[in-house]
C-alpha cells in the first residue's frame, strides 16, 4: 500500500506535537465520569433514593435534553446518563484534532514539504485518524478499568467506556471526510461542528419527551443516539456497537476514497474566483473585521436560534413531567408552584447558552492572535490604522456578537415557549432577559482571554482553558459536589438565577467592573508590547 507509506512517521509527528494536549483531554474525559461514581454514591446512597432520583431529576426534561435517557435506577446507569454530554465534547475535540492535523497542515503548505518525502498521499489522513481513534480506545480502556475498579459491573463498564471512546472515533471519521471537501481548514471545522450539532439536535429531539415518546425513533438517526442506546449498566446491547463501528469504517473509507481522488491542497468543492475590486464596504479595519468575522457570526446566530427553539419548545414538557409525577409535584409546590420548575429549567438552560456564548466570544477575541501570528496584522498596522483601532475591529464582535447570539437564543426560546403556553407577551421578555443576564459573565471570560493575549500572547490559547474551566464548573459542579469556593471561580455562578428569582444588579456590576479592568489591562499590554512576528 504505497498510499500509506510514511504513516508511521506521521503518527510520531502528531504524537510529538500533541504530547501535552492529547493526554490532557483524555485524562479529563476519564476523570469526570470516574468522579461521578463517588459523588453520586454520596448523594444517593440507597436504592430507594436512587429510584426517587430516577423518577425526578433523572427524567426531567433538562437532563433528558442534555444528557439523554436514563435507562435504569442503578448507580452505573445514573452515572452513564450524567456523562451523556461528554460524547458531544469528545466528538468536538476529535473533529478539531483531525482537521488540525490534515487540512490545516495542507492549507499552511507544511503538508507539501512532507509530501515530497517518502510519504503516500493517504498517510497524513491515516495517521490523524489512527492517532485520534487510538486515543478514543485508550479512553475506553481507562474508563472500563476506572469504573470497574469502583465496584461497577465489568460488562457495563466496558460498554460505557466504549460509548465514550467510540464517540471519538465516529467524529474523527466525520472530520476526516469534511477535511477532504473544502480547501480551507475553517470551513472543514465548520462542517464537522455542524454535523456534530445536527447529531446532537436529533438526539435531543428524540429523548426530550421521555421514554416511549412519539419521536424516540429519531434517536436511531443520530450516532450520538446510537452511542447512548448501547445502554451501559442497563442490559447492554452490544450489537449497537457494531453499528457505530460500521459507520466509522464507512466514513473512513469515504474519506480515503475522496483523498485519493483530489490534488494536494485542493478540496472536492472547487474554489470560486473573487471580485477584482473591493466593494465600498471593505474600506478599512472595521470593514475587514466584518468580512473576516461575519460569516462565523451568522453560523453562531443560526445555531443559537435553533438551540433556543429546542430549549423553548421543550419547556412545556417539563411542566407535563411535574403533572405526571407526584413526588416532583410535591417538591415544586413547596418551591412555589409549577412555574418554579419551568423557571429553574430556563435558568439552567440559559447558563448553558452563556457558556456557548463565552466560547463564541473567546473565538472572536483570539482571532486577533491568529491574525497577528499569521503575519496578516503587520501590513495593516503599517498603514495609518493604530493598534487600538485594529483590536477594536475584532473586539466589537466579542462584545456585540456575543450579545447578538444570546439575544437570538433567548428570543427564540421565549417565543417557542410562549407559543406553546399561549402567552408569548409574557414569556419572550422573561426568557430574553434571562439570556441577556449571562452577558457580563460571557464578557468576563472574553476579557480574561484578551488580557492573556495582550500581556502574554504566546499563551493566548489558554483563553480556551478559561471557557473549559467555567464549563466544567457550571455543567458538572453540583454533580461533582465541588466546594462553593471552587464554584465561585466560574463567573456564571454569580449570574442571578433568572427567570423566577429577583434580579439583582450588584453581582452583574461586579462582573462588568472586573471585565473592564481585565480588558483595559489586555489592551494596554497589547499597545505596549512588540508585535509577535513569525
Amino acid at each position: 500500500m504505497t498510499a500509506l507509506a510514511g504513516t508511521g512517521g506521521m503518527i510520531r509527528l502528531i504524537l510529538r506535537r500533541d504530547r501535552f494536549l492529547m493526554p490532557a483531554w483524555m485524562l479529563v474525559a476519564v476523570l469526570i465520569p470516574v468522579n461521578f461514581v463517588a459523588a453520586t454514591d454520596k448523594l444517593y446512597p440507597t436504592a430507594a433514593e436512587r429510584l426517587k432520583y430516577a423518577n425526578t431529576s433523572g427524567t426531567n426534561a433538562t437532563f433528558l435534553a442534555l444528557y439523554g435517557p436514563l435507562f435504569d435506577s442503578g448507580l452505573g446507569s445514573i452515572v452513564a446518563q450524567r456523562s451523556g454530554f461528554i460524547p458531544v465534547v469528545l466528538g468536538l475535540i476529535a473533529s478539531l484534532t483531525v482537521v488540525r492535523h490534515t487540512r490545516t497542515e495542507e492549507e499552511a503548505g507544511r503538508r507539501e514539504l512532507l509530501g515530497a518525502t517518502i510519504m503516500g498521499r493517504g498517510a497524513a489522513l491515516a495517521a490523524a485518524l489512527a492517532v485520534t481513534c487510538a486515543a478514543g480506545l485508550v479512553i475506553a480502556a481507562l474508563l472500563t478499568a476506572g469504573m470497574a475498579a469502583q465496584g461497577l459491573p465489568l460488562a457495563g463498564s466496558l460498554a460505557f467506556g466504549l460509548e465514550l471512546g467510540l464517540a471519538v472515533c465516529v467524529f474523527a471519521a466525520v472530520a476526516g471526510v469534511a477535511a477532504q471537501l473544502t480547501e480551507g481548514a475553517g470551513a472543514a471545522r465548520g462542517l464537522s461542528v455542524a454535523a456534530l450539532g445536527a447529531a446532537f439536535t436529533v438526539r435531543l429531539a428524540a429523548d426530550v419527551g421521555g421514554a416511549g415518546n412519539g419521536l424516540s425513533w429519531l434517536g436511531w438517526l443520530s450516532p450520538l443516539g446510537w452511542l447512548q442506546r448501547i445502554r451501559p449498566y442497563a442490559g447492554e446491547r452490544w450489537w449497537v456497537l457494531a453499528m457505530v463501528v460500521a459507520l466509522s469504517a464507512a466514513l473512513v473509507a469515504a474519506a480515503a476514497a475522496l483523498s485519493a481522488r483530489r490534488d494536494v491542497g485542493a478540496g472536492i468543492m472547487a474554489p470560486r474566483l473573487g471580485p477584482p475590486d473591493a466593494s465600498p464596504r471593505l474600506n478599512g479595519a472595521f470593514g475587514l473585521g466584518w468580512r473576516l468575522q461575519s460569516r462565523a457570526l451568522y453560523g453562531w446566530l443560526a445555531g443559537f436560534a435553533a438551540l433556543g427553539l429546542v430549549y423553548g419548545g421543550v419547556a412545556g414538557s417539563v411542566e407535563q413531567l411535574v403533572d405526571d409525577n407526584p413526588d416532583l409535584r410535591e417538591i415544586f409546590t413547596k418551591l412555589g408552584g409549577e412555574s418554579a420548575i419551568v423557571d429553574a429549567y430556563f435558568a439552567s438552560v440559559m447558563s448553558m447558552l452563556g457558556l456557548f456564548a463565552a466560547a463564541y466570544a473567546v473565538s472572536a477575541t483570539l482571532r486577533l492572535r491568529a491574525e497577528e501570528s499569521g503575519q496578516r496584522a503587520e501590513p495593516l498596522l503599517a498603514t495609518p490604522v493604530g493598534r487600538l483601532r485594529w483590536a477594536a475591529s475584532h473586539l466589537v464582535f466579542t462584545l456585540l456578537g456575543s450579545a447578538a447570539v444570546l439575544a437570538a437564543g433567548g428570543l427564540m426560546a421565549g417565543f417557542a415557549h410562549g407559543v406553546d403556553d399561549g402567552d408569548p407577551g409574557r414569556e419572550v421578555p422573561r426568557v430574553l432577559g434571562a439570556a441577556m443576564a449571562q452577558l457580563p459573565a460571557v464578557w468576563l471570560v472574553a476579557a480574561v482571554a484578551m488580557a492573556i493575549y495582550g500581556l502574554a500572547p504566546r499563551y493566548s490559547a489558554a483563553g480556551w482553558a478559561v471557557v473549559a474551566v467555567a464549563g466544567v464548573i457550571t455543567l458538572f459542579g453540583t454533580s461533582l459536589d465541588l466546594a462553593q469556593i471552587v464554584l465561585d471561580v466560574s463567573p456564571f455562578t454569580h449570574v442571578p438565577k433568572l427567570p423566577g428569582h429577583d434580579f439583582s444588579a450588584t453581582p452583574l456590576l461586579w462582573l462588568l467592573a472586573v471585565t473592564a479592568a481585565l480588558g483595559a489591562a489586555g489592551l494596554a499590554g497589547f499597545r505596549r508590547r512588540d508585535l509577535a512576528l513569525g
Partner: protein
Amino acid sequence: MTTDSIPISVRGLVKTFGRTRALDGLDLTVREGEVHGFLGPNGAGKSTTIRVLLGMLRADEGTARLLGGDPWHDATELHRRLAYVPGDVTLWPNLSGGEVIDLLGRMRGGTDQRRKAELLERFELDPRKKGRAYSKGNRQKVGLVAALSSGAELLILDEPTSGLDPLMEEVFQECVREERDRGRTVLLSSHILSEVEALCDRVTIIRNGAAVETGTLADLRHLTRTSIDAELARSPGGLADLPGVHDLRVDGGRVRCEIDTTRLDGVLRLLADGGVQSLSIRPPTLEELFLRHYKDDLAAEEAAHAAASADREGRAS
C-alpha cells in the same frame, strides 16, 4: 540638511529578544529621494530594523527617526506617508488579491485605480484569485502592486522580490526607477546583489546587527580591491614590494594580483614599464564586497575558536 528632511535616520539602535542581540548599535541614514540598498546575510537584523522603523517592535536603546517623527509614538501619523512590502506577503485566504490591494490602498487614504490597473497588467497578476490560491511570487506581486499604487513618499521594501521570476524582477526594477524619478525615497532590503547594483544610489551592509559599511557603490568599491590579469614582455620587478598588492602570482610574463583600489596608479605605472601585451582590470563586484565582509566574519570566528581551544589545551596541560 536638517534631520527633518532625512527620511530615515537611525543611531546606535539596539534590540534584544531574550538573550539574542538582534540589533547591536545599528546606524542607518537614508537621504531624501534616494534608493538605499540594505544588505546583509540572513539573520543580520534587516527585518528587525524595518519593524522597528514601522513601530511593530520597540527599540531597547538608540534613536530612530522616520520622516521627522518617532516610529513608535507617531506610528499612525507616519504610516500615512509610507508604504511597506514584507518579504513574505501573507494574504487572507478568502479575500481576492484585488480586494487586498484596494483595502490596503483605502487604509492609506485611497487607491489610484488607473495606476492599479496599469501595475496589474505590468506584473501580469490576476486580481480575482483568492488569497490561498496565489503562489509565493504572486502573493509578493499583490504586496508590490498595493505599495506601488499608493503614492506614498517613502517605500519600505523588505526583500520584496523573493519568489519573482527574472521577467518580473525586470518589471520591479523599472517600477522602482519610476518611483525614484518621481522623487520618492526607497529603502530596499535585498539579497539580490544585481538588483541592488542596478537600483541603489547608496548601500548599507549590516552584519550581526551593526552596519559594517555604508556609502555609494563607488565609495565602497574604492575601499576594496581590483583584480588585475596582465601579460608582460618582461618579468616585472619590485611588484611584490609595492604597498597594497595582494595575492601576487607571477608565471613567466603573466601577472595576476589583487590591488587596493587606492593604489592602482602606482601598480599600473610599474606594469607599463614591463611592456604590457594584454591587460584586464576588473573592478570588484558587489558580491565580492559582500563576501569579503562575510568571510572576515568567518575568519574572525575561526580565530576566536582556535584561541579558545588553545586556551583550554593550555590549561589542561
